[in-house]
C-alpha cells in the first residue's frame, strides 16, 4: 500500500500521483469534500439576494407554500433562501477563527519550541492555564458580557482557540529543533527568524493545515452555539444558530424553519471533520496529504 513513488516532477507524473492519491480517498470523505465545495460557492456567490425580504402579514407558513418550498419563518422570510444566505455567517467567522488562532499558534509555538528558555516557560504556563478553562462557557460569558458584534465574537474565539494551536505547533517544532538539518543551519550561522520561517515552518505545515481544518469545524459549532443564544449577531441576520432559536417556537407551524438550519450545521461540521480526520490519518501514515 505504501509503495514509494519516484519523485518525478513532470506534469504527467504529478497528475498520475494525484489520481492515485485520489483513488485512496474513501467515498464518504469525497462526498464531504464536494459538500464543502458547494458551501464555499454559497459563501462567495450571493445566491439568495431575497433572503431578507420580510412579509410579516404572511408570517410562518409550512413547507410547500407556493413560492416557498421550505415555508417561511415568523417574519415571513423564505427559509430556503435564509438558510442559503446563512452559509456566509457560518463559514467566514470560523475560517477566520482558525486562521487567527493558528497565526498565534505558529508565532508563539515556534518561538517557544525553538527558542526555549523563558519564552517557552511563559508561553507554556499560559497554555496550561487557558487549556484548563471551559472554552465554550468562557466564550459565552465574555461575548455576552462584553457584547459587541460578530467580529468581537470571532476575536474572543481566536483567543480561546489559540492555546491548543500553540501547544500543537510547539510540540511539532520541538520534534524538529534538534535534527541535523536544523543544527546545520545554525552551523551556517543563519539568523533565528530565517531558520524558523524557511526551515521549521515548512515541516510543520501539513500538521498546521489539518489542525486548522478541525478547528474550523469546532469553531463552527461554537459560533452557532453563541448565535443560538443571540450573541454576536444582530437579531435580523441570516445565521443558522439564530434561525434555530427563532424556529424553535415554530415547531408546530413550520418545523423546517429550525430543522433545516440545524441539519445544515450538523452536515457542514461533519463534512469538515471527515475531511480533517482523513488528512490527519494520512499525515500519521507519513503520506503527504
Amino acid at each position, binding site marked *: 500500500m505504501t509503495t514509494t513513488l519516484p519523485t518525478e516532477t513532470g506534469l504527467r507524473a504529478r497528475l498520475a500521483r494525484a489520481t492515485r492519491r485520489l483513488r485512496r480517498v474513501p467515498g464518504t470523505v469525497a462526498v464531504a469534500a464536494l459538500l464543502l465545495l458547494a458551501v464555499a460557492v454559497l459563501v462567495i456567490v450571493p445566491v439568495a439576494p431575497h433572503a431578507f425580504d420580510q412579509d410579516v402579514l404572511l408570517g410562518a407558513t409550512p413547507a410547500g407554500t407556493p413560492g416557498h418550498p421550505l415555508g417561511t419563518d415568523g417574519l415571513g422570510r423564505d427559509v430556503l433562501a435564509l438558510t442559503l444566505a446563512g452559509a456566509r455567517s457560518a463559514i467566514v467567522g470560523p475560517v477566520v477563527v482558525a486562521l487567527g488562532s493558528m497565526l498565534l499558534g505558529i508565532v508563539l509555538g515556534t518561538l517557544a519550541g525553538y527558542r526555549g528558555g523563558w519564552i517557552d516557560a511563559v508561553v507554556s504556563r499560559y497554555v496550561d*492555564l487557558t487549556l*484548563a478553562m*471551559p472554552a465554550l*462557557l468562557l466564550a459565552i460569558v465574555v461575548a455576552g*458580557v*462584553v457584547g459587541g458584534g460578530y467580529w468581537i465574537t470571532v476575536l474572543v474565539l481566536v483567543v480561546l482557540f489559540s492555546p491548543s494551536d500553540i501547544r500543537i505547533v510547539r510540540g511539532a517544532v520541538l520534534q524538529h529543533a534538534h535534527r541535523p538539518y536544523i543544527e546545520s543551519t545554525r552551523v551556517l550561522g543563519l539568523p533565528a527568524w530565517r531558520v524558523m520561517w524557511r526551515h521549521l515552518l515548512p515541516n510543520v505545515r501539513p500538521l498546521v493545515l489539518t489542525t486548522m481544518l478541525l478547528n474550523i*469545524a469546532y469553531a463552527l459549532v461554537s459560533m452557532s*452555539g453563541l448565535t*443560538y443564544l443571540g450573541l454576536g449577531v444582530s437579531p435580523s441576520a441570516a445565521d443558522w444558530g439564530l434561525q434555530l432559536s427563532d424556529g424553535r417556537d415554530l415547531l408546530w407551524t413550520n418545523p423546517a424553519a429550525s*430543522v433545516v438550519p440545524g441539519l445544515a450545521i450538523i452536515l457542514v461540521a461533519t463534512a469538515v471533520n471527515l475531511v480533517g480526520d482523513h488528512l490527519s490519518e494520512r499525515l500519521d501514515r507519513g503520506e503527504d496529504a
Partner: protein
Amino acid sequence: MPVARFLLRRLAALTALLVALSFIVFSLLHVAPGNLVKNLLGPRPATPEAVAAIRERYHLDEPFLAQYAHWLGGVLRGDLGVSARSGTDITTVLGDRVGLTLLLAGLAALLAIGVGVPLGIRAAQRTGSLTDRLITGSAVVGVSAPGFAVGLLLLYVFAVMLGWFPIYGTGEPGLDRLRHLALPAVALALGTGAMVVKVTRTAVARELQQDYVTFARSRGVPERVVRRTYLRNASVPVVTSAGLVVAGLVGGSVLVESVFAIPGLGVLLADSITYKDVPVVQAITLLVAATIGVTTALVDLYTAVADPRVRRATVGHGRGRGAVGAVADPTLPDASLPTSALPDGSLPGGMPGPGAGGAA
C-alpha cells in the same frame, strides 16, 4: 513522599487556575458596558443618597484590586453576592437550580460513558472492520453535531411528530422527571459520548498493539485474562478524559437547557447574560470552574494511584483537545494474527515478529 508532593503540586495548580479564572471573571464586571449603579438601583429613584449608599455598599469607590479582594473574601465565606436583576441572594438563587442541572448532567454523563466506553472498546477490538468504521463514523458525526441542534431535531421527531416525550418543562420529581429529561440528556450526551468513544478506541487500540498482548496470546493465556489486563492499562487515558467530559457537559448544558426550556443553571446563565446580571454570571462561572477543577484533581489522583510512572515523572500533557485527535494505526499488522498464525509446537517464547504475515 512522592505521592504527597505530586498531589501538592496539582493542588497548587488548581488554586492558581481558580484564582486566575476568578480574576478574569471579576474583571468582566468592569469591562461590561452599562451602568452598574443603575442596574443595582433598579426602579428606585436615583437620589444622590441612594447612589452613594450603593457605591458604599459595593465598594465601588475603592481601587479595582481592593474590590476584587472584597469579592473574593465574600466568595470564600460562601457569600456570592446579590443578583443585580432581582436583588435576591445569589446563593439561594443557585441552590434552587443546581439540582436540576446536576441531574441532567449526571444522566448525560451516565449515557456518554455507559454507551461510549463499550463502543470504543468494540471498535478497537475490531479495528478496520465494518463495525469499527460504523462506530468511528458515527463518532465523527457526534463530535460535529452541537447539542442544541441535535436537541432540536430530537424535539421535533420524538416530541412533535411522535409525541412520545413532552416538549417543555421538567415534570414532577421521580419517573416523570426522568421522562422530561430523557431527550435533553441524550442531546447533551451525544457530543461527549462521541469524544469518549474516540478516546477509548485510541487507548485500547494502542494497548492491543503492545508486545505483552501478543505474547500473552501466543502463550495461550485465556482471552478473558488478556482482556482484563489490557483494559486496565487502557483505563488511564480514558479516566483522564473525564475532565473533558465534564467541560463538554457544562458548556453544552447551557445550550441544551435553553432548547428544552429547563430552568437549570444554564438557562439562568443565559438569562443573566441577556440582562447583564454580572454578579450571577460571575458566580455560575466560578462554580463551574471549581467543578471542573475538582474533577481534574480527582482524575490526577486516580492516575497517580493507578500508574506509578505518573508519580515519578512530571505529569504528561495528555489533556486538552489535541489529545483526542491521536489516531492509532488503522490496520493492526500482527497483534491479532499470532494466536492463529503460529504453527503448532513453536516455541512459546518465540517472537511472532515481522514474519508472522507468512502464515498459511
